[in-house]
């Protein structure tokens, strides 16, 4: 019958990127308590992001935002059976080491927290736990992949309930990939230079027409329609941060967004799940936020 003929390999790119593949077509929800994690799992979340404050509160309360207390992460891990993600500050490799020690399933090196290093991101190849990183354009996505990110999410503008930045970022990334596919080999050298990314990776994307990792969308998604729009624009899945637990009826809204992501191309179903959800998060228009206070510009 069966025998293992080679040693087991842990933390390979394939199993890191593979977990993201299994999350596709799903919704990852920000939660700040075990009770919220329970609501998220019951509503059909494919994973939860454990954090101390949702982006809307980080934005309104200000101050330095850091990795969550390990006790909070443990309490959420104990509550649910779906994968648990947690955020580390950009460049804060020790926070990432702690999250790995806590055995979270994915680490989000996130611009929602205050960056710990304005030059370097975390060397993500040093970890067996996979990383997801934000990106506003293809070059940024590729630089994160070169550093070892196993999943990319477009950034959007977190904590606003305004989906316009998420739209801009997913359209930008998709558009830049489509443009690469139309270039000749000689033009790809210049494209790689302009994208500030290695030629081999740029050439691979030109040939396959897609990123080598899963691409989710995040930042400002507040309604089933927002989520379905991101899917129609080509996202593999959706992160919802403040949009659920800053709304009037989190249980129902969470379940509605899950359904809208699966049936993203069926307007009748999206209409049905959009009924009677109560108040959406109030939100802030991105254009009303002064440029220095925009989170999407963190990371480079």
């Amino acid at each position: 019958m069966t025998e293992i003929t080679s040693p087991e390999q842990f933390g390979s790119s394939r199993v890191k990127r593979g977990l993201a593949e299994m999350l596709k077509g799903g919704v990852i929800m920000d939660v700040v308590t075990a009770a919220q994690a329970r609501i998220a799992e019951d509503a059909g979340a494919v994973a939860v992001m454990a954090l101390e404050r949702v982006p809307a509160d980080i934005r309104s309360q200000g101050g330095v935002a850091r990795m969550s207390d390990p006790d909070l992460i443990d309490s959420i891990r104990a509550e649910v059976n779906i994968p648990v993600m947690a955020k580390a500050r950009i460049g804060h490799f020790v926070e990432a080491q702690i999250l790995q020690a806590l055995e979270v399933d994915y680490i989000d090196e996130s611009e929602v927290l205050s960056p710990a290093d304005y030059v370097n991101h975390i060397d993500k190849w040093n970890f067996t736990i996979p990383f997801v990183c934000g990106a506003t354009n293809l070059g940024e996505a590729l630089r994160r992949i070169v550093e070892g990110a196993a999943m990319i999410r477009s950034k959007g503008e977190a904590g606003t309930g305004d989906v316009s930045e998420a739209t801009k970022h997913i359209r930008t990334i998709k558009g830049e990939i489509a443009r690469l596919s139309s270039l000749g080999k000689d033009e790809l050298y210049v494209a790689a230079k302009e994208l500030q990314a290695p030629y081999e990776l740029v050439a691979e994307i030109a040939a396959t027409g897609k990123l080598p990792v899963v691409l989710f969308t995040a930042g400002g998604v507040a309604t089933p329609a927002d989520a379905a729009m991101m899917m129609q624009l080509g996202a593999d899945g959706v992160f919802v941060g403040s949009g659920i637990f800053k709304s009037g009826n989190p249980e129902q809204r969470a379940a509605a967004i899950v359904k809208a992501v699966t049936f993203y191309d069926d307007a009748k179903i999206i209409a049905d799940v959009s009924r009677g959800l109560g108040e959406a998060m109030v939100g802030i228009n991105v254009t009303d936020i002064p440029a220095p206070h925009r989170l999407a510009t963190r990371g480079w």
Partner: protein
Amino acid sequence: MPEATLVDMPAPARLAGEAPIGVLALQGDFREHADVLRALGAEVVLVRRPEELALVGGLVIPGGESSVMDKLARMFGLFEPLSDAVAAGLPVYGTCAGLIMLADTVLDGITGQQSIGGLDIVVRRNAFGSQAASFETELDVSGLAGGPMHAAFIRAPVVETVGPAATALARLADGRCVAVEQGSLLGTSFHPEITGDYRFHEYFLRRVAAAAFRR
């Protein structure tokens, strides 16, 4: 699966054309399965609704989050038709979450989680622990020609008990069962759709063809 039973079967590409192969597309890596099946010559239908299920001569349940697939299947009226189709002998291949969906008994599911069932097995969901314990390895698969299969286990389930009606096809070095078959049903804890080894999919398409032949 003794080699002899496969000898006289035609290539999957020809017979799979009789009815399309469905891939359950509620959540998970269904596009990867669809790509593999198309590469093997099958016509593929993504299944999210009962009327799509009714079209197919075989079904793949992909990897993903089993609790979410279960929930969506129940919410959108797909759970009963799936159970009925399995009971009626529809060939189904489940990977990871798909294996959980096909298990008669699921351990460590989320509260209220149900499975379609059909395989006489007890499956433990997420049996290895967190993502840190996800791994790749080589597996010898009983009856599968062409040498060991490279297999990726991602927060994978394990078959803790193989009932008398089911047959174990592969085990880890510690003896834990990670691939089973029973009648028209096939299940693996691992993900051939992301490792580029399509022998399980080829085998599944042959079974679909044989089932169509009998009907």
